[in-house]
């Protein structure tokens, strides 16, 4: 099966709309619908590994929930996890967004949504910090090993500190450097940005959006009837 390329705008919209629907729609219905919908999108995009990962994490969370819910003392763990589980489908779709599209594509997508420029830039930098973080995390872990400073669960807070403090300093420096890199390349130009990667809204994008909206509408109808 050939993979379908989804316009990033569609994924962004879904990610914005879905969580806010918990106000309007029955939680259980929305939870299962989003899980099914995210699985469907992942299959279309050919991201089978990510799909498997999502289902496993989801399954584990639900599993722990059903076990702990029977015991009053452990109940809070289950309740905490069930709340967390509801955000899993959205997080997975967001992770696809970050890993599959480059900053220029994300910028272009956000720009077509007529969001103010400074916000677009801030969101893009934040999204792109995730892969940078992963890369830097590996470097820090490696240099801890070479220094002979091990990450141990015996002293979790201290170990955690070794990871986080250098990251924070790097983060502050990086933010300034990236801003400078953007500024000297005209990110503040008061004209409408054009896009080299701009994508037309395809038939498949419209279909995915339609399925999403119909699913939500169904939920609202069900919710009001009950």
């Amino acid at each position, binding site marked *: 099966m050939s993979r379908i390329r989804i316009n990033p705008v569609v994924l962004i919209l879904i990610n914005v709309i879905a969580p806010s629907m918990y106000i309007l729609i029955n939680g259980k219905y929305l939870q299962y619908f989003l899980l099914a919908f995210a699985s469907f999108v992942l299959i279309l995009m050919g991201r089978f590994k990510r799909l498997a990962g999502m289902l496993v994490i989801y399954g584990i969370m639900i599993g722990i929930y059903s076990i702990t819910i029977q015991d009053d003392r452990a109940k809070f763990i289950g309740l905490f996890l069930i709340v967390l589980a509801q955000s899993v489908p959205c997080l997975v779709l967001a992770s696809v967004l970050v890993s599959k599209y480059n900053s220029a594509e994300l910028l272009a997508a956000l720009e077509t949504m007529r969001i103010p420029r400074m916000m677009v830039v801030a969101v893009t930098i934040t999204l792109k910090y995730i892969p940078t973080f992963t890369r830097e995390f590996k470097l820090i872990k490696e240099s801890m090993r*070479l220094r002979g400073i091990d990450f141990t669960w015996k002293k979790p807070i201290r170990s955690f500190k070794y990871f986080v403090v250098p990251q924070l300093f790097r983060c502050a420096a990086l933010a300034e450097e990236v801003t400078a890199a953007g500024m000297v390349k005209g990110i503040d130009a008061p004209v409408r940005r054009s896009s080299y990667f701009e994508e037309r809204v395809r038939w498949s994008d419209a279909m995915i959006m339609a399925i999403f909206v119909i699913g939500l509408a169904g939920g609202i109808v069900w919710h009001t009837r009950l």
Partner: protein
Amino acid sequence: MAYTPVIKAEGLSFKYNESKEGIFDVNFEINQGEAVLITGNSGSGKSTLLKCLNKLIPTITEGELKGKLFINGEDYDSVKMYALNKKVGSVFQNPRSQFFTENSTAELVFPMENYGTDKEEMGRKLDELKKDFNLGKMMGRDIFTLSSGERQMLALASSLTMNQKVLIFDEPSANLDYGNAMRLGRLIDKLKHNGYTIIVADHRFYYLNGIIDKVFFMEQGKLTSFASEEEFKNSGYDTRSFDIFSLNIPFTGAAESKDSVVAELKDVSYKEILKNVNLKLHKHEVVGLVGSNGAGKTTLARLLCESNKPDGGKVVKGSLPFFIMQDPDYQLFGTSVDNELSLVKNDAKRIAECVDYLGLKPYRYKHPFDLSGGQKQRLQIAMALICDRDLIIFDEPTSGLDVYSMQRVSDEIVKLKEKSSVLVISHDYEFLRHVADRIVYLNDKTIEDDFILNKENVNRLNAIFGKMAEETA
């Protein structure tokens, strides 16, 4: 029409907030088609001046700015940042963060998108840049997978996308090997002849020999102007860096080492990078590992550190080597200089001695991240001095250091060999001449040459550098 300089400064001063540093009463004129070198030691104000030229000062860096700057006769105050950067292209020093995106094609179109260029025009410009800078092989790639030479080309190309005619470089040679630096020199020469105005700030300038029209020498924020390269060379300032091969540096006087072997690579192969490499590292010996960018020098070091496992052959060694990477920010975990050192070895007496020796005493209770670049590096050397490991590896310890700091690091590295074996990966000819007892040349997946660095063999080292320059020709 009266003749107007491209850039003119009149009494330009800038002082950073909460700091005495800055630039003071700077005056100069730069004309079209000139190549200008701005040089001086670290902290002399080179970068500050460049930031004024591309308006990052005062746009994002705060402080007190006085005096006037003009571009083509127009006052900088009346030119907006985005309008200025259509005329002035900037190439930064940091290989990691000078790119806004992480894909090479996206990076090239990024400025054009910002200025609203239409898609056809972008395609046309992209083709033109591809041809001019030979970017064919690196389009559409993840920037992190590019070599440092390729990244430099990309940074240069992306700073010219809006047809800028003025180009600013901040320490472009810091992360380049000798061959790529020489290639950059040739490119700058070519751009200059095509009418571009080039401004380069760097403390090494061997790659600009014979190209420069004017030199601005910075010292504690003050600028002294020299009307030509010749005038600068005759000025009495330390301009040796123009011709690195004529430097008269004494040799360390090392002979074939008879000391014990601390680490050995036996027939080691790794992926497509290294094939059947054999190498013995001895105690009390400083080995300079040289080779072009991407020759596998860092991979070899990583094999010694068990970061990578060899596909074939064997790595024999005692303790884990102490590896000092290029970027100290990833390697500092302590809450103060003292604490950082005690994480290596909790021996208050030795820490005190070491801190004293390296001039870190006033900073003992400072957080490592609050230190300057040079101080961070000295802290790393202090860590190496007290670490009790047999082998200490440095990856490009002098990139971005001025000549004085480089000489200081050299002395400290020589001190390290009193108790350990030292392996330095370096592109820096002058530094290698100061510290290396032995040179190992990595080329074409294997060790092509391995010799004691002395008067008889220095030609071999020069030939290696000559060869690296030819490779990029």
